[in-house]
């Protein structure tokens, strides 16, 4: 079955420190991978995506993510965290070749940046 796992419900990081939010996936073939962010009482917003090419992709607000095919992971990273980065982060996957365009989300990881 196709699935996305975010093993941490919550991640706490001190402001200025690097942050990592973990994501692993289980799909057949070569998936397309995404990160979204949700601020309180808002809908989700697209951050970045991996389709093909360079394993390190850069997105909005200084975030980047590293695709690792052997570990089936797509961890979200930022070199220096800001308090304003505190939000709920979702990893998502769309199976490659899936012409039906289904996008499956993980359960989300709450990121707390401590001042």
């Amino acid at each position, binding site marked *: 079955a196709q699935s996305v796992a975010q093993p941490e419900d919550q991640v706490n990081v001190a402001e200025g420190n690097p942050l990592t939010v973990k994501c692993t996936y289980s799909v057949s073939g070569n998936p*397309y991978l995404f990160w979204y962010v949700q601020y309180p*009482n808002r*809908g989700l*917003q*697209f951050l970045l995506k991996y389709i093909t090419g360079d394993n390190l992709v850069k997105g909005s607000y200084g975030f980047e993510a590293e695709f690792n095919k052997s570990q089936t992971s797509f961890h979200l990273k930022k070199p220096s965290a800001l308090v304003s980065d505190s939000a709920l982060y979702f990893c998502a996957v*769309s199976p490659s070749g899936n012409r*039906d365009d289904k996008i499956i*989300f993980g359960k989300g990881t709450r990121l707390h940046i401590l001042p």
Partner: protein
Amino acid sequence: DARVTQTPRHKVTEMGQEVTMRCQPILGHNTVFWYRQTMMQGLELLAYFRNRAPLDDSGMPKDRFSAEMPDATLATLKIQPSEPRDSAVYFCASGPPPTGHTGELFFGEGSRLTVL
């Protein structure tokens, strides 16, 4: 500024009542998704449409939920009868074709449903 519009933003109703949530996707987007967000389950895909045709509604309880797109500017999600376990935030999202390749879904602000 194009955006996905959902109504109502908040709805409190009693068990057994019918609830209809509406979504206006971004003009030109041909895929529409309905997701449900709860603390326990996270973000669940309920149903989605491409060019107004339902592609997958396997995530939706068929006995009480129904999703339709009467035209390209309106998607509806109906619950009849509603139950307390339906309490959640329901999100509509739309995407330009082909969504699976671009990945960028545009989400509405959500409809927060409370069933008493």
